[in-house]
């Protein structure tokens, strides 16, 4: 019973971990370059949750010095994640721009088909 409560009490972390692993899995398992970027975005988004959920205090007030304001939540994580969101958007847009160029150059965005034409990129060749 205790264990169940323990697990339920930290549900925010479970969601974070699920998103993190799911995103990473999509990056590894999918051969479609756009789907890989979607996975990468989910992976990055899970980190936003990792920062934000400990930044909230139940019943906390805004961080104002004055009467009636006590036990405020640290606003720093929110600011950090605003920056991280911008970084995530930039990465995703650059990634998509590259996929567009790859599609123009190769006529496909499936990794398997590209690796067939370019043997340098075959996974086994490196090792």
């Amino acid at each position, binding site marked *: 019973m205790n264990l169940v409560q323990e697990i339920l009490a930290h549900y925010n972390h479970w969601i974070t971990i699920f998103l993190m692993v799911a995103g*990473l899995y999509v990056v590894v398992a999918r051969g479609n370059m756009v789907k*890989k970027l979607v996975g990468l975005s989910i992976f990055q988004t899970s980190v936003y949750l990792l*920062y934000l959920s400990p930044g909230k205090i139940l019943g906390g007030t805004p961080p104002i010095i004055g009467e009636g304001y006590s036990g405020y939540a640290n606003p720093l994580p929110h600011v950090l994640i605003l920056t991280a969101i911008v*970084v995530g958007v930039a*990465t995703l847009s*650059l*990634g998509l721009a590259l996929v567009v160029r790859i599609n123009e150059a190769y006529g496909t965005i499936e990794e398997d088909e590209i690796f067939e034409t370019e043997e340098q*990129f075959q996974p086994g060749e*490196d090792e």
Partner: protein
Amino acid sequence: MIGENLPALQVILPLFGAIIAALVRRGDIAWLVTLVTGVATLMVAFALLVKVLAGGPISYEIGDWVPPIGIEYRVDVINAYVLVLVSVIAAVILPYARTSIALEIREERRAWFYTMYLLCLCGLTGITITGDAFNAFVFLEVSSLSTYTMIALGRDRRALIAAYQYLIMGTIGATFYVIGVGLLLVMTGTLNLVDLSTRLVEVESTRTVSAALAFIVVGISLKLALFPLHVWLPNAYAYAPSVATVFLAATATKVAVYLLLRFLFSVFGAHFAFGQLVLTPMLLLLSVAAMFGASIVAAFQNNLKRMLAYSSVAQIGYVTLGIALATATGLTGGIVHLFNHAITKAALFLVLGIVFYCAATVRVEDLAGLGRRLPVTMAGFVVAGLSLIGVPGTAGFISKWYLVAAALEKGWWWLAVLVVASSLIAVIYVGRVVEVLWFRAPTETVAAVRDPPTVMVATAWLMVAATVYFGIDTNLTAGVASLAADSLLQGPQ
């Protein structure tokens, strides 16, 4: 006034230079802007190093916000040294860049290349100078995103795939890093590196902090291409424009190594990272695997750029070997190899850039007898190649000397043997190229190559001369490196 604001200028100069280069749109003018900015950044870096050597660490409050609330830029011996390394390379290769870029990149894209070059410089100096863990992440992404773009500007369509693969791997690495920083923030409530190191002492034994260390080390290892997280590197180096390869090979992985040093020694402290956790055997194993594995793969490459890229992975192994030893001599060896390998690899890739300019290929079988056709240029390859092997009288020898000494100091003679044995593999892959270039009769393609531009040869030889100079006079390199190693080992200050 300017003297006080040097740390901010170090980052802001290339940032504004990048904006101007993007606005002028003309390749030649953008190059001029880049040259002026690069030289100015170099002067700032030198001024900072002189200041730090004379008066100890400099702390700079961005926007007058007092740390740890505000972001602090903090310059001490080790990052002043890395800053000089990065800005020297960035400035010195610019005269070379103009000719090489004019050949390899279309006119309308040249200004964008210089913009990305300056943004990458801005990101790299930013990572090095900042004293804030999250700020370092932002600069890491600034440098990474501009790097992906520079690689994608390569002429070959495979450059696009290389850039895409690097983007995926690099983003995973940076996200791992930011997860680790997030866990540290949750435990300590601070992001300032100095503040972190004092507050971490209380919570050091928690599992969260160990997890944070693991995430940060793996994340940065992806960026510095520690074996086996190096798979993005060979293609990225092979298909990027020649200038981008020189710049990245000499600086990007080195800055990532600096960030790793900063976290392991200044934030977590050697006693925690190497005493309570088992980082030494793990790093040692991966370093030795890199030294041998990547060197052997390098010996089988036909594309010379890929060969040198694999050799870079191997050389990073020597740097991490020095870190894994975590002794004064070992760290000195690692840090001095950071510098020596940067100039050696820059020299080699500069020569390859000339080869590509003249012969339009870097495949070894097409280049038989090139040494007889371009003797001055290819002699540079031989000298820098000797430094890569670690022959006495070249820079590469100095760092390997320190590493072997550090291994013997610990009584690990087998490690000293491994360092020497792995250098012998470098003899094979450098020797194979020298044999083809010098001792075979020139092919028809080689006989038809054009003459290299003087400015490119001069730049390459400047770097080659540096590898010899720093193999003889080690005051600047080993001297500063040992100061840096001592200050790192003292741990959090």
